[in-house]
């Protein structure tokens, strides 16, 4: 069936939630009007991940981020609280902070020396006699982002004052976040700076669609599989068989998961292998969790939290859209707290091997993103298919669950995207 008609109504019609042929229009990746609307209706109207609390442990620590293209500062004030502030002087609009991260007692606009505290309060103006005595300084602090909230260290900002709470937004994916944290017997992680950063000439959703895609691995990462075979970590056949196991999950609110089976057998899961290798780790895990929980924790998952966050076994990934065809991706590795140092050291070395701009796997993914970005300019057909496994998925416990190579998570992503873009 060739479907070539052009959608004419709303941007929501760029996603066809057809029960047999779920599909998306190619312009979701290329159209500047779509991108502008996304910044507004997706990024400025959802809980967007901005960092981990371990990045900002001390009073005066700050980092700057882009949320939907808008410059923000996330800062720890002397009251111990974190604040998300619009990075724009109230006077003439200059940014008050230009560094990626650092430590400062205040933010000063360099244009006319207006000075703001770490919570945004206006605490000084140069030559202030130019303003009347009754000038209400308290009304001219850096504007605070309406909502900033942490879930177990994961810090989310919401530029909209209304809409679902963070609890409501995360509810469908929360148990997977908890299992992800559970590999630490303290259920805590600590980010290790600096992050890997890469940027590609392609749309942000190409990265979002790929992190839980269980279909591409045997083709895009055949090279990686051959490296593993060289190092005797598994034959290409073994690895390709492993890649058939597990499932994909499309969750409500746009979240999604790629999952490999958990196991208490050291030969079948990383967690069980580490517990066998390091008795102190096994002891700490058993003190905290029962076997059924360890079974769940040991399942290896790539977890996507709509719209810009991935949780991987080695890193926290942030997707930063910069233009319809330009995206930055940041990979923050982290240490699992309360585990032997050698476990974390080997996790970081393993991460470095696959990821980053010179890793043995990630650059191959980036390569195909650029190929899609180029391909969708061809107009012979206008729709990309995301219907793989629609005939064999099942709906259970509020989740669409499919074969590990199927596309339920991608469909979940675009269902939420469609709702957002419709302005619902």
């Amino acid at each position, binding site marked *: 069936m060739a479907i070539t008609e052009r959608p004419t109504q709303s941007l929501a019609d760029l996603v066809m939630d057809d029960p047999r042929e779920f599909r998306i229009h190619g312009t979701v990746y290329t159209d500047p009007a779509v991108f502008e609307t996304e910044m507004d209706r997706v990024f400025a109207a959802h809980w967007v991940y901005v960092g981990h609390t371990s990045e900002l442990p001390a009073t005066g620590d700050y980092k700057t981020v882009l949320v939907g293209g808008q410059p923000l500062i996330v800062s720890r004030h002397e009251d111990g609280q974190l604040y998300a502030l619009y990075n724009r002087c109230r006077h003439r609009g200059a940014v008050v902070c230009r560094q990626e991260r650092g430590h400062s007692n205040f933010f000063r606009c360099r244009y006319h020396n207006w000075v703001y505290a770490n919570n945004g309060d206006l605490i000084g103006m140069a030559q202030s006699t130019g303003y009347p005595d009754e000038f209400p300084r308290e009304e001219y602090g850096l504007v605070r982002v309406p909502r900033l909230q942490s879930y177990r260290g994961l810090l989310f900002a919401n530029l909209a004052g209304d809409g679902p709470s963070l609890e409501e937004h995360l509810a469908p994916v929360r148990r997977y976040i908890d299992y992800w944290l559970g590999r630490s017997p303290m259920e805590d992680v600590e980010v290790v700076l600096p992050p890997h950063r890469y940027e590609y000439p392609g749309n942000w959703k190409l990265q979002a669609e790929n992190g839980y895609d269980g279909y591409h691995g045997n083709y895009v990462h055949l090279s990686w599989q051959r*490296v593993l075979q060289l190092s005797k970590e598994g034959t290409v056949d073994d690895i390709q068989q492993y890649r058939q196991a597990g499932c994909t999950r499309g969750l409500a609110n746009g979240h999604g998961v790629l999952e490999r089976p958990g196991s208490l057998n050291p030969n079948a899961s990383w967690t069980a292998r580490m517990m066998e290798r390091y008795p102190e780790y096994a002891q700490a895990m058993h003190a905290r969790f029962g076997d059924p929980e360890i079974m769940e924790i040991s399942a290896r998952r790539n977890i996507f939290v709509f719209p810009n966050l991935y949780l991987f076994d080695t890193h926290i990934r942030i997707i930063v859209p910069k233009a319809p065809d330009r995206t930055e991706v940041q990979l923050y590795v982290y240490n699992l707290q309360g585990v032997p140092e050698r476990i974390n050291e080997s996790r970081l070395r393993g991460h470095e091997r696959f990821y980053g701009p010179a890793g043995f796997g990630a650059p191959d993914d980036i390569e195909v993103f650029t190929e899609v970005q180029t391909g969708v300019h061809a107009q012979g057909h206008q729709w990309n298919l995301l219907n793989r496994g629609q005939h064999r998925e099942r709906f259970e416990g509020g989740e669409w669950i499919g074969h590990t190579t199927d596309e339920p998570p991608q469909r979940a992503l675009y269902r939420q995207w469609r709702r957002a873009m419709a302005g619902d």
Partner: protein
Amino acid sequence: MASETAGRDDVERFLIAEARLLDERRFDEWEALFTDDATYWVPIDPERASPGGISIIHDDRARLHERVYRLTKTPVLDQNPASRTIRLVSNVEVDAAPAPGELTARSAQLITEMRPGGPGQAGLSAPRWFAARCEYRLRRANGSLKIAMKKVTLLNSDEPHYNLSFIP
């Protein structure tokens, strides 16, 4: 003074030859320039003196071999089409040996890189430039130089990068 100059010329010739092996994608021969205990390091943080956390590249000898194996023997996407590179090596300085039989060398390099492609292909056909400061620990063995340590600090090491798999 005369012997130091000879040492510097020696090292400069060696670094230029190394750059040519990479430009000509003779990766196996390039790998053979490294000692068995060698490291190859491309940090993210330009200020950091020793590796901590992660790097763009932090290869021990085994991983360096994997890197070369990947480029030469496996179906990579990110180097297909392959990068063309021209490497300029300059500002070579050679310092006193920290250990017997070893030299420390510093250089500046500028790599111009491009992957050819058809019309309109995102990510291809666009030259990129990578300036870097390089540090080497070189060891004389059987009359020739070997690389015991190579560190490449890119000018924009902590900025986001598109693929750097061409060996910076």
